[in-house]
Protein backbone atom coordinates (compact mmCIF):
# COMPACT_ATOMS: atom_id res chain seq x y z
CA UNK A 1 0.00 0.00 0.00
CA UNK A 2 1.29 3.49 -0.77
CA UNK A 3 2.18 5.89 2.01
CA UNK A 4 -0.81 8.06 1.08
CA UNK A 5 -3.03 5.02 1.13
CA UNK A 6 -1.80 4.09 4.59
CA UNK A 7 -2.40 7.61 5.90
CA UNK A 8 -5.90 7.68 4.45
CA UNK A 9 -6.62 4.29 5.97
CA UNK A 10 -5.55 5.49 9.40
CA UNK A 11 -7.67 8.63 9.04
CA UNK A 12 -10.67 6.62 7.94
CA UNK A 13 -10.24 4.27 10.87
CA UNK A 14 -9.93 7.20 13.27
CA UNK A 15 -13.08 8.78 11.89
CA UNK A 16 -15.13 5.71 12.69
CA UNK A 17 -13.32 4.87 15.91
CA UNK A 18 -15.15 3.46 18.91
CA UNK A 19 -17.44 6.19 20.19
CA UNK A 20 -17.17 6.94 23.89
CA UNK A 21 -20.13 5.80 26.00
CA UNK A 22 -22.38 8.62 27.14
CA UNK A 23 -21.91 8.96 30.92
CA UNK A 24 -25.05 8.25 32.99
CA UNK A 25 -25.42 11.85 34.13
CA UNK A 26 -25.49 13.01 30.52
CA UNK A 27 -27.92 10.44 29.15
CA UNK A 28 -31.02 12.20 27.90
CA UNK A 29 -34.29 10.73 26.72
CA UNK A 30 -35.77 11.94 23.43
CA UNK A 31 -38.66 13.07 25.62
CA UNK A 32 -36.62 16.18 26.36
CA UNK A 33 -36.68 17.13 22.68
CA UNK A 34 -40.45 16.92 22.30
CA UNK A 35 -42.67 19.95 21.85
CA UNK A 36 -44.77 20.82 24.94
CA UNK A 37 -47.89 19.46 23.22
CA UNK A 38 -46.31 16.08 22.51
CA UNK A 39 -44.91 15.91 26.05
CA UNK A 40 -48.43 16.56 27.36
CA UNK A 41 -49.71 13.77 25.14
CA UNK A 42 -47.29 11.30 26.71
CA UNK A 43 -47.56 12.46 30.31
CA UNK A 44 -51.25 11.90 30.84
CA UNK A 45 -52.52 8.32 30.60
CA UNK A 46 -55.88 9.64 29.45
CA UNK A 47 -54.43 11.50 26.48
CA UNK A 48 -51.63 9.07 25.59
CA UNK A 49 -52.80 7.06 22.56
CA UNK A 50 -50.55 4.23 23.79
CA UNK A 51 -53.02 3.77 26.65
CA UNK A 52 -55.46 2.28 24.18
CA UNK A 53 -53.00 -0.54 23.55
CA UNK A 54 -52.28 -0.91 27.26
CA UNK A 55 -56.03 -1.40 27.80
CA UNK A 56 -56.23 -3.97 25.03
CA UNK A 57 -53.21 -5.72 26.49
CA UNK A 58 -54.84 -5.82 29.91
CA UNK A 59 -57.82 -7.61 28.36
CA UNK A 60 -55.63 -9.96 26.32
CA UNK A 61 -53.68 -10.83 29.50
CA UNK A 62 -56.83 -12.35 30.98
CA UNK A 63 -58.05 -14.08 27.86
CA UNK A 64 -57.72 -17.88 27.67
CA UNK A 65 -56.37 -18.84 24.28
CA UNK A 66 -54.57 -21.51 22.28
CA UNK A 67 -54.91 -25.28 22.47
CA UNK A 68 -53.79 -25.15 26.07
CA UNK A 69 -56.69 -22.76 26.76
CA UNK A 70 -54.58 -20.73 29.14
CA UNK A 71 -54.33 -17.02 29.74
CA UNK A 72 -51.17 -15.11 30.63
CA UNK A 73 -52.78 -14.55 34.02
CA UNK A 74 -53.06 -18.29 34.63
CA UNK A 75 -49.26 -18.53 34.92
CA UNK A 76 -48.25 -14.97 35.69
CA UNK A 77 -51.05 -13.77 37.92
CA UNK A 78 -51.47 -10.05 38.40
CA UNK A 79 -49.21 -8.29 35.92
CA UNK A 80 -48.95 -5.22 38.12
CA UNK A 81 -46.96 -7.38 40.55
CA UNK A 82 -45.29 -10.01 38.42
CA UNK A 83 -44.36 -7.91 35.40
CA UNK A 84 -42.98 -5.02 37.42
CA UNK A 85 -39.42 -4.33 36.22
CA UNK A 86 -39.51 -6.97 33.49
CA UNK A 87 -39.47 -4.70 30.44
CA UNK A 88 -36.69 -2.65 32.06
CA UNK A 89 -34.32 -5.61 31.77
CA UNK A 90 -35.28 -6.87 28.35
CA UNK A 91 -33.85 -8.19 26.00
CA UNK A 92 -33.00 -10.92 28.50
CA UNK A 93 -30.80 -13.97 28.10
CA UNK A 94 -32.69 -17.15 27.29
CA UNK A 95 -30.57 -20.05 28.58
CA UNK A 96 -32.39 -22.63 26.50
CA UNK A 97 -31.69 -20.73 23.30
CA UNK A 98 -28.31 -19.38 24.41
CA UNK A 99 -29.21 -15.96 23.02
CA UNK A 100 -31.08 -12.91 24.28
CA UNK A 101 -34.75 -12.58 23.43
CA UNK A 102 -36.60 -9.25 23.26
CA UNK A 103 -39.97 -8.57 24.88
CA UNK A 104 -42.11 -9.26 21.82
CA UNK A 105 -40.05 -12.39 21.18
CA UNK A 106 -40.62 -13.58 24.74
CA UNK A 107 -44.36 -12.98 24.51
CA UNK A 108 -44.44 -14.97 21.30
CA UNK A 109 -42.50 -17.83 22.90
CA UNK A 110 -45.07 -18.03 25.70
CA UNK A 111 -47.89 -17.74 23.16
CA UNK A 112 -46.61 -20.67 21.09
CA UNK A 113 -45.00 -22.92 23.70
CA UNK A 114 -47.25 -22.38 26.72
CA UNK A 115 -50.57 -21.32 25.26
CA UNK A 116 -50.01 -23.52 22.19
CA UNK A 117 -51.31 -20.93 19.79
CA UNK A 118 -49.91 -19.95 16.39
CA UNK A 119 -47.18 -17.33 16.58
CA UNK A 120 -48.17 -13.65 16.37
CA UNK A 121 -46.85 -12.05 13.17
CA UNK A 122 -44.45 -9.12 13.65
CA UNK A 123 -46.16 -5.84 14.61
CA UNK A 124 -49.41 -7.73 15.20
CA UNK A 125 -51.83 -5.60 17.21
CA UNK A 126 -52.43 -8.07 20.04
CA UNK A 127 -48.72 -8.74 20.37
CA UNK A 128 -48.03 -5.02 20.64
CA UNK A 129 -50.91 -4.59 23.09
CA UNK A 130 -49.44 -7.24 25.38
CA UNK A 131 -45.99 -5.71 24.98
CA UNK A 132 -47.38 -2.25 25.82
CA UNK A 133 -49.23 -3.63 28.86
CA UNK A 134 -46.14 -5.42 30.17
CA UNK A 135 -43.83 -2.49 29.45
CA UNK A 136 -46.24 -0.11 31.19
CA UNK A 137 -45.61 -2.02 34.43
CA UNK A 138 -41.98 -0.85 34.28
CA UNK A 139 -42.73 2.83 33.81
CA UNK A 140 -40.56 4.96 36.08
CA UNK A 141 -38.15 2.11 36.81
CA UNK A 142 -34.49 2.30 35.77
CA UNK A 143 -33.27 0.28 32.80
CA UNK A 144 -31.02 -2.56 33.97
CA UNK A 145 -28.36 -4.44 32.10
CA UNK A 146 -26.07 -6.49 34.32
CA UNK A 147 -26.24 -10.05 33.04
CA UNK A 148 -22.71 -11.15 32.14
CA UNK A 149 -24.09 -13.63 29.61
CA UNK A 150 -25.26 -10.70 27.50
CA UNK A 151 -21.76 -9.34 26.96
CA UNK A 152 -21.02 -10.95 23.58
CA UNK A 153 -24.38 -9.70 22.30
CA UNK A 154 -23.82 -6.20 23.64
CA UNK A 155 -20.48 -6.23 21.82
CA UNK A 156 -22.15 -7.43 18.65
CA UNK A 157 -24.79 -4.71 18.99
CA UNK A 158 -22.12 -2.10 19.57
CA UNK A 159 -20.32 -3.20 16.40
CA UNK A 160 -23.56 -2.88 14.44
CA UNK A 161 -24.14 0.55 15.96
CA UNK A 162 -20.73 1.70 14.83
CA UNK A 163 -20.47 0.19 11.37
CA UNK A 164 -21.09 2.46 8.40
CA UNK A 165 -23.84 1.23 6.16
CA UNK A 166 -26.21 2.08 3.36
CA UNK A 167 -26.03 4.45 0.42
CA UNK A 168 -25.27 7.29 2.80
CA UNK A 169 -22.43 5.33 4.38
CA UNK A 170 -23.43 6.43 7.85
CA UNK A 171 -23.29 4.62 11.16
CA UNK A 172 -25.82 5.05 13.97
CA UNK A 173 -22.96 6.24 16.13
CA UNK A 174 -22.02 9.14 13.89
CA UNK A 175 -25.37 10.82 14.52
CA UNK A 176 -26.41 9.51 17.90
CA UNK A 177 -23.04 9.50 19.69
CA UNK A 178 -21.07 12.18 17.87
CA UNK A 179 -23.79 14.65 16.98
CA UNK A 180 -26.69 14.41 19.41
CA UNK A 181 -28.13 17.77 20.28
CA UNK A 182 -27.21 19.24 16.92
CA UNK A 183 -29.82 19.68 14.23
CA UNK A 184 -30.24 17.52 11.18
CA UNK A 185 -32.52 19.11 8.60
CA UNK A 186 -34.02 21.28 11.31
CA UNK A 187 -34.76 18.42 13.68
CA UNK A 188 -32.71 17.98 16.87
CA UNK A 189 -30.74 14.73 16.89
CA UNK A 190 -31.56 12.52 19.89
CA UNK A 191 -29.14 10.21 21.73
CA UNK A 192 -31.50 7.39 20.69
CA UNK A 193 -32.24 5.58 23.94
CA UNK A 194 -35.09 3.04 23.89
CA UNK A 195 -36.81 4.33 27.01
CA UNK A 196 -40.34 4.51 25.63
CA UNK A 197 -40.96 1.29 23.74
CA UNK A 198 -43.30 0.12 22.38
CA UNK A 199 -43.87 3.67 21.22
CA UNK A 200 -46.81 5.57 19.72
CA UNK A 201 -45.08 7.24 16.85
CA UNK A 202 -46.99 10.14 15.30
CA UNK A 203 -45.45 9.33 11.92
CA UNK A 204 -46.95 5.81 12.08
CA UNK A 205 -50.19 6.97 13.69
CA UNK A 206 -50.01 3.76 15.65
CA UNK A 207 -48.00 1.93 18.28
CA UNK A 208 -44.91 0.03 17.14
CA UNK A 209 -41.93 -1.90 18.44
CA UNK A 210 -38.27 -0.97 18.77
CA UNK A 211 -37.55 -3.35 15.93
CA UNK A 212 -39.86 -1.36 13.67
CA UNK A 213 -38.09 1.84 14.66
CA UNK A 214 -34.67 0.35 13.92
CA UNK A 215 -35.92 -0.68 10.50
CA UNK A 216 -37.04 2.91 9.92
CA UNK A 217 -33.57 4.13 10.83
CA UNK A 218 -31.93 1.75 8.40
CA UNK A 219 -34.32 2.67 5.61
CA UNK A 220 -33.73 6.34 6.40
CA UNK A 221 -30.01 5.78 5.92
CA UNK A 222 -30.80 4.04 2.64
CA UNK A 223 -29.54 0.73 3.95
CA UNK A 224 -31.35 -2.53 3.41
CA UNK A 225 -32.95 -3.44 6.74
CA UNK A 226 -32.35 -6.92 8.17
CA UNK A 227 -35.26 -9.34 7.85
CA UNK A 228 -37.88 -9.16 10.57
CA UNK A 229 -36.78 -11.15 13.58
CA UNK A 230 -33.11 -11.07 12.59
CA UNK A 231 -30.65 -11.61 15.45
CA UNK A 232 -29.03 -8.31 14.49
CA UNK A 233 -32.05 -6.43 15.86
CA UNK A 234 -31.92 -8.26 19.16
CA UNK A 235 -28.19 -7.57 19.40
CA UNK A 236 -28.78 -3.89 18.68
CA UNK A 237 -31.63 -3.72 21.20
CA UNK A 238 -29.49 -5.45 23.83
CA UNK A 239 -26.68 -2.95 23.21
CA UNK A 240 -29.08 0.03 23.24
CA UNK A 241 -30.58 -1.01 26.56
CA UNK A 242 -27.08 -1.44 27.99
CA UNK A 243 -26.15 2.00 26.66
CA UNK A 244 -29.27 3.44 28.31
CA UNK A 245 -28.88 1.64 31.65
CA UNK A 246 -29.93 3.75 34.60
CA UNK A 247 -32.42 5.79 32.57
CA UNK A 248 -36.08 5.58 33.51
CA UNK A 249 -38.58 3.65 31.41
CA UNK A 250 -41.40 5.77 29.92
CA UNK A 251 -43.42 3.16 28.08
CA UNK A 252 -45.62 3.65 26.22
CA UNK A 253 -43.88 6.76 24.92
CA UNK A 254 -45.09 9.22 22.28
CA UNK A 255 -42.64 10.35 19.63
CA UNK A 256 -43.01 12.40 16.41
Amino acid at each position, binding site marked *: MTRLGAVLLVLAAAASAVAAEIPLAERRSSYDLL*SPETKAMQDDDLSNPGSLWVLEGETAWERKTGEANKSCADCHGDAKETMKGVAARYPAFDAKRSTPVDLEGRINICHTEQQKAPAFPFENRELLALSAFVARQSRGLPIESNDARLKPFIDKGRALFEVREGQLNLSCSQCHDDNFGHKLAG*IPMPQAHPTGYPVYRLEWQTLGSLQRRLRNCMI*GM*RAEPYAYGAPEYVALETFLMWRARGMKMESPGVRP
Partner: protein
Amino acid sequence: MRRETTRRDLLLAAGGLGLATVVTVRPSEATPASMQEAIRKVIGEAQVTPGKVKLDIPPLVENGNTVACAVNVDSPMTAQSYVKAIHVFNEKNPQPNVISAWLGPRAGRASISTRIRLADTQKVIAIAELSDGTFWSDSADVIITLGACLEDPV
Protein backbone atom coordinates in the same frame (compact mmCIF):
# COMPACT_ATOMS: atom_id res chain seq x y z
CA MET B 1 -49.53 1.28 3.71
CA ARG B 2 -48.04 3.74 1.28
CA ARG B 3 -48.72 7.40 1.16
CA GLU B 4 -48.71 9.21 -2.17
CA THR B 5 -45.35 9.39 -3.92
CA THR B 6 -44.12 12.94 -3.67
CA ARG B 7 -41.36 14.79 -5.36
CA ARG B 8 -39.43 14.35 -2.14
CA ASP B 9 -39.63 10.56 -2.41
CA LEU B 10 -38.36 10.55 -5.99
CA LEU B 11 -35.47 12.85 -5.21
CA LEU B 12 -34.45 10.84 -2.17
CA ALA B 13 -34.73 7.55 -4.01
CA ALA B 14 -32.34 8.97 -6.57
CA GLY B 15 -29.98 9.51 -3.64
CA GLY B 16 -29.68 13.08 -4.76
CA LEU B 17 -30.85 14.89 -1.66
CA GLY B 18 -29.43 12.62 1.00
CA LEU B 19 -30.77 13.75 4.32
CA ALA B 20 -31.42 17.35 3.37
CA THR B 21 -35.08 17.79 3.93
CA VAL B 22 -37.69 19.57 1.90
CA VAL B 23 -40.89 20.80 3.43
CA THR B 24 -43.23 18.45 1.69
CA VAL B 25 -45.23 19.57 -1.29
CA ARG B 26 -47.92 16.99 -1.21
CA PRO B 27 -50.27 17.21 -4.16
CA SER B 28 -53.43 18.38 -2.46
CA GLU B 29 -56.79 19.29 -3.85
CA ALA B 30 -57.91 21.97 -1.44
CA THR B 31 -57.17 25.62 -2.01
CA PRO B 32 -58.04 28.77 -0.13
CA ALA B 33 -60.95 29.06 -2.58
CA SER B 34 -62.36 25.64 -1.82
CA MET B 35 -62.00 26.38 1.87
CA GLN B 36 -64.14 29.51 1.39
CA GLU B 37 -66.68 27.40 -0.44
CA ALA B 38 -66.76 24.84 2.37
CA ILE B 39 -67.26 27.64 4.89
CA ARG B 40 -70.19 29.01 2.88
CA LYS B 41 -71.74 25.57 2.73
CA VAL B 42 -71.71 25.31 6.49
CA ILE B 43 -72.67 28.85 7.51
CA GLY B 44 -74.48 30.21 4.47
CA GLU B 45 -74.05 33.83 3.40
CA ALA B 46 -73.60 35.23 6.90
CA GLN B 47 -70.78 37.64 7.60
CA VAL B 48 -67.88 36.35 9.66
CA THR B 49 -66.09 38.77 11.98
CA PRO B 50 -62.66 38.08 13.47
CA GLY B 51 -62.92 38.08 17.27
CA LYS B 52 -64.28 36.33 20.36
CA VAL B 53 -62.72 33.08 19.18
CA LYS B 54 -59.30 31.84 20.18
CA LEU B 55 -57.77 29.07 18.07
CA ASP B 56 -54.80 27.44 19.79
CA ILE B 57 -52.46 25.49 17.55
CA PRO B 58 -48.69 25.27 17.98
CA PRO B 59 -47.07 27.46 15.30
CA LEU B 60 -44.41 24.85 14.56
CA VAL B 61 -45.31 21.18 14.57
CA GLU B 62 -43.07 18.11 14.70
CA ASN B 63 -45.40 15.92 12.71
CA GLY B 64 -48.44 16.91 10.71
CA ASN B 65 -50.18 13.63 11.56
CA THR B 66 -51.19 14.70 15.06
CA VAL B 67 -51.53 18.41 15.79
CA ALA B 68 -53.09 19.60 19.05
CA CYS B 69 -55.92 22.02 18.28
CA ALA B 70 -58.06 23.87 20.83
CA VAL B 71 -60.85 26.40 20.29
CA ASN B 72 -62.17 28.68 23.02
CA VAL B 73 -65.00 31.16 22.49
CA ASP B 74 -65.65 34.10 24.76
CA SER B 75 -69.31 33.64 25.72
CA PRO B 76 -71.31 33.63 28.98
CA MET B 77 -72.98 30.37 27.86
CA THR B 78 -76.34 31.28 29.36
CA ALA B 79 -79.70 30.40 27.89
CA GLN B 80 -79.84 33.91 26.41
CA SER B 81 -76.33 34.06 25.00
CA TYR B 82 -74.38 30.98 24.04
CA VAL B 83 -72.28 29.34 21.35
CA LYS B 84 -74.34 27.11 19.08
CA ALA B 85 -71.53 25.58 17.09
CA ILE B 86 -67.81 25.69 16.37
CA HIS B 87 -66.50 24.81 12.92
CA VAL B 88 -62.84 24.33 11.98
CA PHE B 89 -61.50 24.51 8.43
CA ASN B 90 -58.12 24.23 6.76
CA GLU B 91 -56.58 25.50 3.54
CA LYS B 92 -54.38 22.80 2.07
CA ASN B 93 -55.51 19.33 3.11
CA PRO B 94 -57.33 17.37 0.41
CA GLN B 95 -60.54 18.38 2.19
CA PRO B 96 -61.29 21.72 3.83
CA ASN B 97 -63.48 20.55 6.75
CA VAL B 98 -61.85 19.47 9.97
CA ILE B 99 -64.49 19.24 12.69
CA SER B 100 -67.86 20.72 13.59
CA ALA B 101 -69.08 20.67 17.18
CA TRP B 102 -72.52 21.62 18.45
CA LEU B 103 -72.70 23.03 21.95
CA GLY B 104 -75.52 24.89 23.74
CA PRO B 105 -76.09 26.56 27.11
CA ARG B 106 -75.56 23.23 28.90
CA ALA B 107 -71.93 23.28 27.83
CA GLY B 108 -71.05 25.81 30.49
CA ARG B 109 -67.91 26.74 28.62
CA ALA B 110 -67.35 27.03 24.88
CA SER B 111 -64.07 25.18 24.88
CA ILE B 112 -63.20 22.12 22.83
CA SER B 113 -59.96 20.46 21.84
CA THR B 114 -58.87 17.66 19.56
CA ARG B 115 -55.94 16.46 17.44
CA ILE B 116 -55.94 17.12 13.73
CA ARG B 117 -53.96 16.24 10.62
CA LEU B 118 -52.32 18.93 8.54
CA ALA B 119 -50.84 17.90 5.22
CA ASP B 120 -48.70 20.95 4.74
CA THR B 121 -47.79 24.33 6.16
CA GLN B 122 -51.10 26.22 6.00
CA LYS B 123 -53.76 28.35 7.63
CA VAL B 124 -56.43 26.90 9.90
CA ILE B 125 -59.67 28.79 10.65
CA ALA B 126 -62.16 28.35 13.50
CA ILE B 127 -65.65 29.85 13.16
CA ALA B 128 -68.14 30.11 16.01
CA GLU B 129 -71.88 30.50 15.51
CA LEU B 130 -73.57 32.35 18.37
CA SER B 131 -77.17 32.12 19.52
CA ASP B 132 -77.82 35.65 18.25
CA GLY B 133 -77.06 34.53 14.70
CA THR B 134 -73.65 36.19 14.43
CA PHE B 135 -70.46 34.44 13.32
CA TRP B 136 -66.97 35.05 14.72
CA SER B 137 -63.61 33.62 13.78
CA ASP B 138 -59.92 33.23 14.50
CA SER B 139 -57.17 31.83 12.31
CA ALA B 140 -53.68 30.44 12.82
CA ASP B 141 -50.75 29.77 10.54
CA VAL B 142 -49.03 26.45 11.17
CA ILE B 143 -45.64 25.30 9.89
CA ILE B 144 -45.24 21.57 9.44
CA THR B 145 -41.76 20.09 9.71
CA LEU B 146 -40.75 16.54 8.94
CA GLY B 147 -38.56 13.96 10.59
CA ALA B 148 -35.16 13.50 8.99
CA CYS B 149 -35.23 9.71 8.64
CA LEU B 150 -38.10 8.68 6.42
CA GLU B 151 -39.95 5.43 6.50
CA ASP B 152 -41.00 3.33 3.56
CA PRO B 153 -43.98 0.99 3.83
CA VAL B 154 -43.36 -1.59 6.56
